[in-house]
């Protein structure tokens, strides 16, 4: 028995407030395609960053070809023959294909770059990848996403690579390009190169993968499963651990419609190419869910309602009053609140104290003549932080040190404090661990029961179906279905969403 190519055992990586990796094991053999499965936030990205030398594990052992090694820097990983192709490709747009491939290890003689040689060898690498049509002289910025991916792989191959990590390579490719990618992967495999392949698409894993490792909540929950014959149900069960089903709260008074007054009215709203002709009402106490793929216009609709994006036509009204187009403060003034998709970069002041984040939209209320009453501010923040069960309930703590779920609660608390009439939630549970999810669901439902009109966007269909009263299904910027959440199931939503998108 020869040693496996790569063996990681008990890898732990702690960030302030989060145990991103909590004992991960991974074993990869030479020449295999090893698939890594897991939901968002399961720790896949952190794990590959550890492998790429970008993060240092706090505990655990990495054995490479039988010997223990430390991957202190991305360069060290490269030198050992581990190459990573990230989702957001790390290429320099302004340089040529050949220059990108040899970036960091330029072919040079006495300080002068040997451009001719570099171009010749780059052409050879591109041919080996089955893409001789890409010219080594071409500027990378002019290539398509698929072309850039090929350049990234050529760069990996320009090193003596034994293991390539691919983070959702198919996310930016169409079907034909995926097929070509798979051919490249098979060729590499035949040369003895191992591939760690990350994807959410099970059918791809079945087609290209040999073995599967499943991550959940920073732990390895299954390893070495055969990629082709493991039943789908088994894989999803391990990914979700559906034994602890999320608890979706039932509305306390779901007595049909016509009950609450219409709070938010969206009429024939369009914004350029993002979406068009969107039309719906949300009543007080109602949760309306928007389901659709990434790029279907879900988030853009929320942003347009909120005024963060200008509508090209159509209107948004709150309590019958029309909101000014493209004006966030008009929306906030009318009682609309948004919990944005990118919590950290769009929602929070990470280095500031919790209470300052909570009061960000209501500061004026705690001020007299411009002078802030910090005592009152903290008292109000503390009240909401306690009501939402933020842990620890310390309003002076920097938001950065809280976990994802608690950070989300801080954004929610901001709008609770404002007593908003309409709450727009964009991916409210992204990066939130399982336990905190149910709490957030319960919280959203409680808000609705208190008469808030909620619009929910999520990429997780069960979340939309479980939490919303009514569902709008979007495909390519158009609403293709509207109806009560109880009348539709996950498969039907997926059918609607995928229909026609393959063509």
């Amino acid at each position, binding site marked *: 028995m020869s040693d496996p190519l790569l063996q990681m055992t008990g890898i732990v990586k*702690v*960030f*302030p*407030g*989060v145990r991103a990796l909590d004992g991960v094991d991974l074993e990869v053999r030479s020449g295999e395609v090893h698939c890594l499965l897991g939901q968002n936030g399961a720790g896949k990205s952190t794990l590959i960053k550890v492998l790429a030398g970008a993060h240092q594990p*706090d*505990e655990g052992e990495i054995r490479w070809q039988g010997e223990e090694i430390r991957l202190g820097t991305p360069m060290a990983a490269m030198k050992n023959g581990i190459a990573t192709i990230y989702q957001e490709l790390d290429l320099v747009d302004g340089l040529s294909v050949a220059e990108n491939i040899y970036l960091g290890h330029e072919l040079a003689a006495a300080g002068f770059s040997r451009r001719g040689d570099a171009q010749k060898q780059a052409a050879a690498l591109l041919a080996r990848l089955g893409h001789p049509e890409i010219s080594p002289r071409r500027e990378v910025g002019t290539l398509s996403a698929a072309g850039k991916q090929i350049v990234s792989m050529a760069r990996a191959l320009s090193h003596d690579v034994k293991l390539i990590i691919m983070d959702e390579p198919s996310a930016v490719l169409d079907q034909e390009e995926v097929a070509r990618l798979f051919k490249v992967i098979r060729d590499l495999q035949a040369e003895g190169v191992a591939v760690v392949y990350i994807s959410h698409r099970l059918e791809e894993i079945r087609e290209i993968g040999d073995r599967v490792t499943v991550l959940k909540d920073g732990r390895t929950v299954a390893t070495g499963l055969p990629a082709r014959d493991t039943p789908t149900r088994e894989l999803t069960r391990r990914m979700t651990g559906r034994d602890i089903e999320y608890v979706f709260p039932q509305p306390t008074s779901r007595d049909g419609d016509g009950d609450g007054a219409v709070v938010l009215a969206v009429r024939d709203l369009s914004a350029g190419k993002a979406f068009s002709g969107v039309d719906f009402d949300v009543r007080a106490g109602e949760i309306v869910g928007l389901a659709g793929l990434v790029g279907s216009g879900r988030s853009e609709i929320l942003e347009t309602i*909120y005024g*963060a994006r200008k509508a090209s036509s159509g209107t948004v009204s709150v309590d019958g009053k029309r909101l000014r187009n493209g004006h*966030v*403060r008009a*929306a*906030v*003034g009318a009682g609309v609140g*948004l919990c*944005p998709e990118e919590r*950290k*970069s*769009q*929602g*929070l*002041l*990470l*280095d*500031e104290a919790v209470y*300052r984040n909570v009061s*960000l*939209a209501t*500061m*004026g209320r705690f*001020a007299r003549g*411009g*002078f*802030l009453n*910090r005592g009152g501010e903290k008292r109000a923040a503390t009240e909401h932080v306690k009501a939402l069960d933020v842990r620890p309930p310390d309003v002076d703590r920097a938001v*950065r040190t809280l976990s994802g779920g608690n950070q989300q609660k801080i954004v929610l608390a*901001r709008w609770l404090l404002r007593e908003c009439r309409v709450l727009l939630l964009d991916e409210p549970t992204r990066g939130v661990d399982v336990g905190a999810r149910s709490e957030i669901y319960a919280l959203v439902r409680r808000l609705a029961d208190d008469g808030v009109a909620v619009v929910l966007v999520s990429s997780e269909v069960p979340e939309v179906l479980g939490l919303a009263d009514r569902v709008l299904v979007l495909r390519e910027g158009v609403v293709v279905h509207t109806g009560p959440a109880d009348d539709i199931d996950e498969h039907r939503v997926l059918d609607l969403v995928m229909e026609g998108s393959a063509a």
Partner: protein
Amino acid sequence: MSDQTPAAPPATPPADEHRRIEAAAAAEGETRSGFVRFMSSPFGRNLGLVIALVVLCIVGVATAGDRFASTDNMLTVLRLASVIGVVSIGMTFVIIGGGIDLSVGAIVALSSVWATTLATQTMAEDTHWLMMVFVACAVGIGCGLVNGLLIAYGGMAPFIATLAMFAAARGLAEIISEKRTQIVDVRGLVDFINGDFIGIPVLVWIFAVVSAIGWVLLNRTTFGRRTIAVGGNATAARLAGIAVKRHTVLLYVVLGLACGIAAIMLTARTGTGSATHGQLYELDAIAAVVIGGTLLTGGRGTIVGTIIGVLIFTTLTNVFTLNNLDSSTQAVAKGAIIVVAVLLQQRVAVRSSDST
């Protein structure tokens, strides 16, 4: 060899082991983050600066003795610090708000020349000196307004917009003054500003009052909170309903006003209005703000840090002058201080925000 090593300690149950490691890691994280938290708190950072200032004073006493430690000399240092200090307080707001202003020196020159031209030519004898104060402040505010509008609504990078103002304002000052130094003979102004109040120069009082207002504005008002929010995360601030553009304009206006006040102080101290006033103020002010612990990327900073930063540079100049060292040597020392201060701060900043 290996068979001689003592047997491994009795295996602890894995669960215990895990808990132990976790506890140890937590404890380590706690002490480290405790120290880092202290050093990155406003108090901890300012403490480091105070120590640096004290060291500088010790060097001053050691090398220049009583000439350094005298009350007169101390007041001289404070008087020197006051003009650039007022500009630096304004600069602190702009930098915390995520901007930068290269035009402060030029605005000081333009404000001073405009005010003295008024006094020496247009209205001659009848000018009340408060009129000069008003004009200088109005000119400063006007320049700040132009900067702010170009940046917030014109979408220009702060560096570029204020670089343009840097060139234009000084050029305009030269045109107005015809490149001549204008002697101010409005005695009221010169006497008042160069006078004392309770034994302390009025210049220093002005700096103290501006500092106090700056501190209250930053730490106790919605204006200050918004400044931190806009500089820390402009997107989050906008999505929380803060008028980010309007606030950005206000920040440059505040700095413009500070420049106008500084122009009056400088004009009175030197008794002249000149297009060469305020040269290199932009660099001195930015340096003082940055070694005072304000992040150049915005979102964090303190008024107290800026004040100490100004004092450090002025004391340094004083110590060097008393020791008959020329300004070139001073410049080298200044450069070294900036590098050391920023390197130290970065270490703290990186360690306290290692999560992304």
